[in-house]
Structure formats: structure tokens, C-alpha cells
């Protein structure tokens, strides 16, 4: 080979050596997560758990996303070469809405408590250290979604995941073989109570936009017509119950449940003696009589402190008490409505602040004897802290401070109030079957008790917390117990 030919032969080799061939990108999915839940109240946290295709838990991250500007939330899942598959479990839930993680507790829809089998407790091991999170989002306030993502060589792009409120309470589940989700796993997509096989996410090639199409608004505002007698309460997603008070047989305010309510109206005041008399004049026929008190209202917790009288004795502005649940409901139906459900009553009573849920109807301020009519009688060894005041049922709006931002009065004190629902545990079968939208559990419990909400003139301050509930036999007619009515919107 002569010298010229040698140079010609080496040139392509030199050019080849000198050129930089690009390295293909690693397979990557940009996961963009959005939700239709109100951010501050109900979706302040996002839990992300990532499993590999062998069902091994690879990582877990619990992110605080309390600001609407924090959403959509985006991050990447990648692999070095591919193909590979990642299983993501995404759970959005309110701040504090957790329980201890003791294993996967696959439950029926509605979230009845099921003790986990020991083998279902998954372990997250990082650097030979068990870093399994101690807590997990409580399913009844959580939207739980599984996503499978296939990472293919040289493919990058976006995966959109929507966490919809309609899936609240419907847990993802998979075979309890001690491993993470797999091809047999199921997840809720957009319908309460329905699980589908976990879908394989669609990767939008070369799309890296971190925004996501906005989801339809859940909130259902009022029409704006203000009525003198009842207040409109806007619909939307809300939480029933409060973890502030622990679960006990006597005070079952937990577990909290995320649910959705339609817009409705509720009486601004408890039903009064005068209103009841007017209804009788209009043709209402009582199903059970209200206890009549022909004398003055006495300072006592007995029939002498009943407010109803067959003749007008000048106390028409007092709340009607000594009335059974059946009669209270019959009256409300005569008036074109019904007793409020527990969820309706509690939503109305927790609107004492602009954003979030208030502890008391008027907000977060500590109750006082002047703000609301309560604790005017000693009870069970505890002195009535307000018993220095008049120890009798008081007229409606006697305490001007007991009012919500919507203008609903005396949801705190005055008289306790019948609601439509039976007195049942929130994590029982009946509540599970009641569904997510406008739930109601009308049947009384085994003891025949219906739920009673709020505090009353003799009741202690504990009852002023808007989540507190107790049960009384439906036939009970007590001087501390009255009611108000709720109506569908637009109301009559």
C-alpha cells in the first residue's frame, strides 16, 4: 500500500474516532398528578410509593402540598436502560388524616375496619435499613390510585394522573402475598366503589409540560338568593367527623370520612313553639304529641321545662323541645323538607371560618357562657360552668354569638337537635353502604337510637364541638332536645 492510499484509508477512521455519537436518553416518565379536591382542606398531602415489577417497594415520599400553587405535582420515574415497569401508588389526603401502618388492610368499599394479616405488611428497605413509614393515609379520607408505567428504551415523556374525589374511600388492592401491586392489582379510576385492573399509563412522547388539564370543579355554589328563614349551604367535598376526639363507644366521631354533598338549605333557627303552632293551624297532624306544659317553664330538667303549650303562653320564640324524632321528621316533611342528615348538619355547623372546618359553629374561639346557651345544669359530677345563669330553655338567638358565617343560629347550644341518621359508627357497614354522595343512614341502631347533634342549655361544653354526636331513642322527648329542618336547593 503506497503512502497516499494509506492516508485515504485512515481518514474515515479518524473522522469516526473524532465524532461524538450522542448517548440516548434514559427511559423516563414525567408523572404529573392533579386532583379535583379542594387543596387546603382535603388534599394538603400527597403520598407517593413506588414499587418495581417484582413487587419490591423501592421508595416512599410523603409530600406536603398545602397550597393550590403546589398542584399539579410532578416528578420523574426512570430506569437506566429499560425496558422496565414501575408501579406507583398515589394517595392524596388531608393533613393529619393518617393511621398506623400495620399492613395492607384491603377492605370492602366504604372502609370497614379490617385487621391486616401479618404477611401483608410490606417493608421498605433502604441501605439495609427498615424505613417503612409508621403511618399511612387513612382510606376514608384518601383518594388512592395505582398507576403502572412502562419505561421503554430511549422513550421519554409525560404521564398524567388524576386523583378524583369520586374515588375517596375506595382503596387500591392486590393479592396479599406480601409483595406490592402487580398485574392483578385493581384501583379506582373515577367512580366510587368501583375498581378496575390497574391501567398501563399512556406516555406522551417528548412532552414535558408540568401543567395538567384542569379537572371539573366539585364545588356547587348557591344561587345567591338569600332567604330570611333558611340559609343555603354550598355543596362540594367535605369531611364528616373529627379525629380531635378519639373513637369510643360513647363518642364515635372517628374515623373521618370524605364525602360529597349537594347544595342544600337549612333553617337559620331551631323550630320554635310559634312555628309549630302555625303548622298545626295549617293542617299538620302530629304523629306523636309534643309534651305540653301548661305552666311556666321551670328551672328543672323534666317535663316542667318543656316549652310547648296548647295555648299561647307568650313563649312562642322558644325552641320547641320535648318532641320525638318521628314527630320532628313529620313536621319537617310537612314544611317541604326533612331533618338534616348528619353530614348536612355538621357541614353547616363547621362553616364558622372562611377556609377549612371550624371546631365550633362560630369559629375556633373557646366557648363562653355569653357566647352560647349551655352548661347551665350540673351533669355527672361536673358542675354546670354556666349554672349561675338562668337554668331553663332560652328563646332562640338568646346568645348572639352562636351563629355561623352563613347566618345559622344556635347550632352550638340552646337545644340539642335531632338529625335524620341513626346513631351508627362511621366505619360500620351502614355508613360504608351509604356511599360517597349525600350519604344518609336513616335506620336507627340496634338500640333504636337516632343521632342527636349539638349542645343544649344543660349540656357540658364538650358537646359544643360540631363533630360531637350522641344517640337518643327515637321516642325520647326531652327538654334539652329540639330540631331544625333542611331542604333541597332551590328550597321551597
Amino acid at each position, binding site marked *: 500500500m503506497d503512502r497516499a492510499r494509506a492516508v485515504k484509508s485512515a481518514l474515515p477512521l479518524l473522522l469516526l474516532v473524532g465524532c461524538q455519537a450522542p448517548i440516548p436518553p434514559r427511559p423516563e416518565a414525567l408523572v404529573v398528578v392533579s386532583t379535583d379536591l379542594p387543596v387546603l382542606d382535603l388534599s394538603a398531602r400527597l403520598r407517593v410509593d413506588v414499587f418495581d415489577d417484582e413487587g419490591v417497594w423501592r421508595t416512599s415520599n410523603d409530600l406536603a402540598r398545602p397550597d393550590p400553587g403546589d398542584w399539579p405535582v410532578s416528578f*420523574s420515574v*426512570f430506569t437506566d436502560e429499560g425496558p422496565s415497569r414501575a408501579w406507583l401508588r398515589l394517595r392524596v389526603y388531608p393533613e393529619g388524616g393518617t393511621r398506623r401502618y400495620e399492613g395492607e388492610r384491603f377492605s370492602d368499599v366504604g372502609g370497614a375496619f379490617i385487621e391486616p394479616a401479618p404477611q401483608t405488611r410490606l417493608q421498605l428497605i*433502604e441501605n439495609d435499613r427498615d424505613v417503612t413509614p409508621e403511618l399511612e393515609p387513612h382510606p376514608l379520607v384518601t383518594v388512592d390510585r395505582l398507576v403502572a408505567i412502562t419505561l421503554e428504551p430511549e422513550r421519554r415523556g409525560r404521564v398524567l394522573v388524576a386523583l378524583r374525589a369520586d374515588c375517596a374511600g375506595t382503596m387500591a388492592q392486590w393479592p396479599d402475598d406480601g409483595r406490592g401491586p402487580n398485574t392483578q392489582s385493581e384501583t379506582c379510576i373515577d367512580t366510587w366503589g368501583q375498581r378496575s385492573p390497574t391501567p398501563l399509563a399512556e406516555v406522551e412522547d417528548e412532552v414535558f409540560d408540568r401543567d395538567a388539564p384542569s379537572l371539573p370543579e366539585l364545588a356547587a355554589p348557591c344561587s345567591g338568593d338569600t332567604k330570611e328563614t333558611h340559609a343555603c349551604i354550598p355543596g362540594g367535598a367535605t369531611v364528616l367527623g373529627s379525629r380531635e376526639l378519639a373513637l369510643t363507644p360513647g363518642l364515635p366521631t372517628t374515623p373521618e370520612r370524605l364525602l360529597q354533598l349537594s347544595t342544600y338549605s337549612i333553617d337559620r333557627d331551631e323550630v320554635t313553639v310559634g312555628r309549630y303552632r302555625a303548622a298545626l293551624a295549617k293542617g299538620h297532624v302530629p304523629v306523636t304529641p309534643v309534651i305540653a306544659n301548661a305552666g311556666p317553664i321551670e328551672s328543672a330538667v323534666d317535663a316542667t321545662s318543656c316549652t310547648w303549650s296548647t295555648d299561647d303562653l307568650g313563649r312562642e320564640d322558644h325552641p320547641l323541645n320535648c318532641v320525638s324524632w318521628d314527630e320532628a321528621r313529620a313536621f319537617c316533611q310537612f314544611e317541604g323538607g326533612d331533618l338534616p342528615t348528619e353530614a348536612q348538619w355538621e357541614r353547616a355547623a363547621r362553616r364558622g371560618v372562611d377556609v377549612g372546618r371550624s371546631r365550633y359553629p362560630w369559629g375556633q374561639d373557646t366557648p363562653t357562657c355569653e357566647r352560647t346557651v349551655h352548661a347551665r345544669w350540673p351533669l355527672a359530677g361536673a358542675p354546670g360552668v354556666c349554672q349561675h345563669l338562668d337554668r331553663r330553655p332560652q328563646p332562640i338567638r338568646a346568645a348572639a354569638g352562636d351563629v355561623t358565617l352563613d347566618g345559622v343560629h344556635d347550632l352550638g347550644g340552646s337545644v340539642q337537635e335531632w338529625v335524620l341518621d341513626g346513631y351508627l359508627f362511621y366505619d360500620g357497614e351502614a355508613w360504608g353502604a351509604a356511599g360517597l354522595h349525600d350519604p344518609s343512614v336513616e335506620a336507627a341502631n340496634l338500640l333504636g337510637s337516632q343521632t342527636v347533634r349539638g349542645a343544649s342549655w344543660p349540656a357540658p361544653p364538650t358537646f359544643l364541638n360540631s363533630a360531637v354526636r350522641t344517640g337518643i331513642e327515637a321516642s325520647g322527648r326531652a327538654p334539652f332536645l329540639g330540631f331544625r329542618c333542611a331542604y333541597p336547593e332551590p328550597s321551597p
Partner: protein
Amino acid sequence: MIARAIAGLALTTALLTPSIALGQDPSHEKGSDEAAEDDDVARARGLFREGAALAEQALWAQALERYERADALAPHASIAFNMGVCERALGHGTRARRAFELALKRDAEEPSLPESMRTSLEGYQREIDELMATLTVTLVPATATITVDGRPLTRRGKHWVAGLAAPGPATSVQRKRFVIEADPGLHVIVVSSPGFENVVLRETLANGARERRDLTLARLPGELQISADREGAAVSVDGLDVGLAPVALRRPAGAYHVEVRKSGFEPYLADVRLEPAAEVALEAVLAPEEIGLHERWWFWTSVGAALAGAAVVTYFVVRPEPTQPPLDGGGLGWTVRVP
């Protein structure tokens, strides 16, 4: 239900009123020489009579208040007895029992109660003992404090009694298992311990109930707040990438290794211990990477020329690794690798 409650109240009133009528006026013991009595005894007598009149009208709380004031002025077994009768009528079994025990103690020191009253008293005590509810509590952690109806507990032998002490700071029983005696009825029990979630129980105890409750407080997680003085710094906790600073993480109490890294800066490394319910705030100060002498401009100026030729040759002989496109990481700047 309320009808039964009201009927019960009326029966109690009817049964107790004669007991009050039987109550002896303690001032009788002073004899007829009232002029010689001191003012306290005279005032005590007046209060006792007011109390008796109120008790006959079943105004138990008002009557009790008079008796208590009388007893403060001139302690006497019969005043303690009538205080017990009022407390019993008000449903305060534990306090009634204490008053009856006080009456018996005083009577033992200086006999003054008639036999009929002593017999009634013993009957009341038996009745209260039968009605008294007990709650066996298993408490974790044992250092937690407890109140019942906003009041601390009072030690009585091996047991603890609710409702005796005035509202005040919670009791620390310092035992894992103990028994609370309480009146039947509704009680609000609050258990708390630093670093744990409070538990509030509302217990309705039946007459003579023997209940058990396991009160295991849930340990509160702590919050780890990590910020940096440079934007875009990546934070990892125990080797797990948790996003770009600032980040706030809720984690179980324990020890954690925190690293904050940014290209061109020295990494910030810290080991922190997170206590339950505590907040630990770390601000990573990222110092620019030190440039050694051999990296100064003049060094490279002097040797650069010499190396340039060799570099060109090397470049063509040893092909440099091409760079790979960076990962996106999304808004969190968080990337998760799967095998």
C-alpha cells in the same frame, strides 16, 4: 328515656328529703347560752338552717353551698352528713362518700350523730359503693397525665377517684395499670403526654359498671425543615432524594442523615435527631468549592499551551464519554430510579 330519667330524679328527691329533715342542727349542742357563742358558730347555725330549708325544696346545690360554708365556720359531723346527702342527690357519689366518711370520722372522735342517722349513713355508703363505677385503665406511656371532667384524680387506697378534686392540672399516676372510681354517668377523660397525640374519651358509665380501657397514645411524628442558601439545591434524607430545598418532611422520631447538594458547591452534611412532635429546622449553607493552586488561571496558562497539543492527540486517541441528556424531575426535582 327522659321520662325514666325524670322519674328517677323525682324518686331520689322524695327519698332524700326526709333525711335532710332528720339532719341535726349542730348548734343544738351549744346549749341555750347563745349569747356566749362566738360569731362563727352563730353564722354557721344560720347557714345550716338556710341549707336545711333549701334542701327541703330539693335545691341541693344551693343547700350544699350553705352547708359547706357552715362547715368551714364550725366543722361538725351532722353538717358533713348533710353535705353528703346533698352531694348524693346531685349525683356526686364520690363526693357524697367522702362527706359521709368525714361525718363518721368526726362522730368517732366526738360522738354526736343519733343512731338513726348513723344507720342511714351506712345505708347510703353501701348504696354508693354498689353504684360506683370503676374503670381499669391500661396506660401507655405510663407517664401520661389524665383528667376526668377537667379535674385531676385523688388517691384513695389502691384506687384513684374522679370528681373529688377541684378543676386543675392533670394527674400523673405513673403506673401502667390502675383503677379509677367514678360516679355513673357521662365523663370526659383527657389523656396527654408530650410527644404523643392527646386522647379524649367520653365515657358513659352505667351503675356499678366495671369497664376496662386500653389507652395507648400514638406517638407524634416530627417535622424536618430543610432549607438552603442557594436555589436549586437537592436534598436527600438517609440517601433518599426528597426534592429541592426548601422541603418540609414529616418523619417518625429518630436519627436521620441529611445531605444538601448543588453542583459547584461543597455538599452540606448533617446528622439530626428528630424528637416526637418536634420541628428541626436546618439551613444548609453551601460554600463554593475550593479551587486549588493548580487550578489557578496562571497555572493553566503556563501549562495549557504545553498540554494543548497532547490534549488534541489524546482526544482523538481516547474518545471522551458523551454526556447523557439530564433527567427532568418535574416540579419537585425528584427522580425515582427503578431497576
